[in-house]
C-alpha cells in the first residue's frame, strides 16, 4: 500500500505502458528534461531516453501530426498538449485528421494514440489556461474522451487508453494533480466506458466528471450527514464511450438527476446526458433534470471570481436541497 498523487500516477501510468510495449513513445513540450510544467512526467526521460521521450518545439500541430502519422504505422504514441486550451491551435489535426481518417479510409487506417492534456480551472490561470473542454472533443465522431478523477483511475484508464486501437483524449484535471489516494496495486486496467460510483444513494443521482465528480462526492457526504439525503454520485470517467446503462439504472431508482459540469453552460456534456435521460427514462423522472454548470462566461482569474464561477461543493449541496426540498 502506497500513497500516490494524481500527478505521480500520470508519470507512473506512462512508464508502465512504456515498459510493457516498445511501440509506446511520448512526445510533448517540456516533458522530458523539465519533467512537464505540472511535474507529471518526471523521470520518464531518465528511464526511457531521448528516443522514446521527445521534447518538442512549441508546435502543437506538428506534435499531434507526428503522433498521428506514427500511429498510422502501428506505433502507440502518447502526445501531450500542455494545456487543453492549446488544443485550439491544433484542432484541425484533432477534429479533421485524427478523428476522421479511419472512417474516410474505410477502416484502412487505425490511429491508436493518446492525447493527454491538463484541463480545468482552480489555479487562477485565467480564461485561456483553465477551460474544461471535454465537450469540444465529445461532439466529434471518432474521438474517445476520458477524464479521470483520482490516481487509480489515471493508472487504470491510461493503461486502457494506450492499448485502445482508437484515438483517446485524456483530460487530466489540473486541480487534481495534488489529490492523494492509497493504492495497493498500480499496474491496473480500467475499461474505457465504465462509469464509477463514488457514493451510494437512492434519493438523487448526481452525475459528474473529473474534479466535479470529486466535488459531487464531497457534497454527497454533507447531504448525508447534515440533510439526511442519500445521493448516488456517478463519476462518468469517460464521455465517449458513455456508460448510459449505469445512468439509467440509477435514474430509475432515484427519479431525480443533477449533472455537475465545469464547462460553460451551452452545449456542455450535461445537455446530452439530460437529453438521453428524457429519451430513456422519462417515465421514471420525478422532475426536470437539473444542470449545474459554470455560467456562460469565460473563466475569470481573481480568487473570488474564479471560485464563484466554477461549481463548488456548497453550490451542489444547495442545488440538491432546492431540488428535493424546494428550499
Amino acid at each position, binding site marked *: 500500500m502506497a500513497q500516490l498523487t494524481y500527478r505521480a500516477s500520470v508519470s507512473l501510468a506512462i512508464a508502465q505502458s512504456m515498459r510493457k510495449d516498445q511501440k509506446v513513445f511520448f512526445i510533448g513540450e517540456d516533458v522530458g528534461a523539465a519533467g512537464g510544467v505540472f511535474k507529471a512526467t518526471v523521470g520518464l526521460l531518465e528511464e526511457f531516453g531521448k528516443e522514446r521521450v521527445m521534447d518538442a518545439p512549441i508546435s502543437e500541430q*506538428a506534435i499531434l*501530426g507526428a503522433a498521428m*502519422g506514427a500511429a498510422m504505422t502501428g506505433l502507440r504514441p502518447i502526445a501531450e498538449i500542455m494545456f487543453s486550451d492549446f488544443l485550439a491551435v491544433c484542432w484541425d489535426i484533432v477534429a479533421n485528421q485524427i478523428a476522421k481518417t479511419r*472512417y474516410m*479510409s*474505410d477502416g*484502412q487506417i487505425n490511429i491508436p494514440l493518446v492525447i493527454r492534456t491538463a484541463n480545468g480551472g482552480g489555479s487562477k490561470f485565467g480564461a485561456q489556461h483553465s477551460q474544461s473542454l471535454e465537450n469540444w472533443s465529445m461532439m466529434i*465522431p471518432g474521438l474517445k474522451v476520458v477524464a479521470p478523477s483520482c490516481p487509480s483511475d489515471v493508472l487504470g484508464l491510461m493503461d486502457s487508453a494506450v492499448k485502445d486501437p482508437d484515438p483517446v483524449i485524456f483530460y487530466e484535471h489540473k486541480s487534481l494533480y495534488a489529490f492523494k489516494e492509497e493504492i495497493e496495486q498500480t499496474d491496473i486496467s480500467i475499461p474505457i466506458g465504465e462509469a464509477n460510483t463514488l457514493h451510494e444513494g437512492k434519493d438523487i443521482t448526481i452525475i459528474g466528471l473529473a474534479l466535479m465528480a470529486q466535488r459531487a462526492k464531497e457534497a454527497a457526504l454533507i447531504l448525508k450527514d447534515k440533510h439526511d439525503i442519500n445521493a448516488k454520485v456517478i463519476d462518468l470517467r469517460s464521455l465517449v464511450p458513455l456508460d448510459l446503462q449505469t445512468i439509467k439504472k440509477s435514474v430509475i431508482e432515484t427519479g431525480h438527476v443533477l449533472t455537475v459540469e465545469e464547462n460553460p453552460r451551452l452545449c456542455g456534456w450535461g445537455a446530452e446526458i439530460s437529453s438521453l435521460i428524457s429519451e430513456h427514462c422519462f417515465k421514471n423522472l420525478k422532475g426536470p433534470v437539473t444542470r449545474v454548470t459554470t455560467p456562460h462566461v469565460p473563466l475569470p482569474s481573481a480568487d473570488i471570481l474564479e471560485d464563484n464561477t466554477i461549481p463548488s461543493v456548497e453550490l451542489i449541496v444547495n442545488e440538491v436541497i432546492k431540488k428535493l426540498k424546494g428550499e
Partner: protein
Amino acid sequence: MVDKLNDDIGEEKRLQLWEMMLKLRLVEKKAYDLFLQNLIKGTSHLALGQEAIAGAFGVALKQGDYTFCTYRGHAHTLARGSSIEGVLGELMGRQCGLMKGKGGSMHLTDVDKGVMGSYAIIGAHLTIANGTALASKYNKTNEVSVCFFGDGTTNIGAFHEALNMAKIWNLPIVFVCENNLYMEYTPINEVTAVEHPAADRAGAYDLDKIIVDGNDADEMLRTAEKAISKAREGKGPSLIEAKTYRHSGHSRADPGKYRPDEEVKDWMENKDPIKNYRAKLLDFNINEKIISEIEEKIKDQVEKATEISMASPIPEIKEIYTDVWANGGSEWHN
C-alpha cells in the same frame, strides 16, 4: 539537344515514366468526362498538366515508402500503383472505390500501396507525414516519406512547424511543393513575401534551396531520386519546389478565367510535360511504335476500368454506420 552517350536514365526507366505520366493524364481526362456526364458528384481537383511530378516520384519510390498528397491527389495515388477502377470508382461513389465511397475524391487512401491519404485541409499532412518518417526512424527501418502539396500551403503555419520538426529530428522525408503559380484563384506571388514560396523559405530551416522545372520529367526524376536517396541514407529532409501549371481550373467549379489567355496557351502548347516527353523519347531514338503501343495500352486500361466502375454497385446504406471505431462500428454509448 539530348546527350545520348551520357544518358543517366535509360530507355527502360523513360518508358516507365512515359507510361506512368500517360496513365495519370488519361485517368484525369476520364474523370473530367465523367463529371460532364454527371457520373461523378461533389467536387474534384484535377492535376492535368502536373503529371511529371507525381509520375517521377511514382517511378523513384520503392514499395513500402509512404506518400501523402492533397485533395488534388488522383495522380499521386495512381502513381503508387493504385488501380484505376479503385480511383474512378471512389470518385463515382461505387463499391469498387478505394474506400467504397466513404472518402471521395479528396481523400483517396490506399495503405497497401503506401498511399497514406489525401488531405483536404491545407498544411495538415506535412505534419502527419513527419509521423510516418518518425516511425521509420524509431523502428530503424529505411522507408522514405514523401509529402506533396501546393504553393498555397507555404503560407500556413503547419508548413513551417513541419519543416522545423523534420529538420531538428533529421527525419527521412521529402517535401514536394508543386508551384502551379496559383493559390486556388489568386496568383501566389500576390500573396507571398518571397518569389519562390517554398524554396526561398528553405534556408530558414537549414535546408537546401531546390528549384526544379516540374514539367521536365527527366529533371523531376533526377531530383526525386536524389532527395529520396538522401532521406533513405539517414541524411535528413529535403524541400523541393517544382514549377508547374495546372491545365484546368482549381476545382470542378472553376473554369480558371482569372489566368491570362497567353499564359495558359504558353503552358499548354509549349510546356506540356507529356507532349514534351513524347518528343524527348523520339529524340532518344525510342521507337515510335513502342510509344504508341503504350498509349493504346493505357487507353484500353482506362476504358476497362471505367466499365468496371460503372458496373460496380453503389454502397449499401448501412455503410454509414461502419468503421468509425476500430471495432468496425460507430456506437458511442452502451
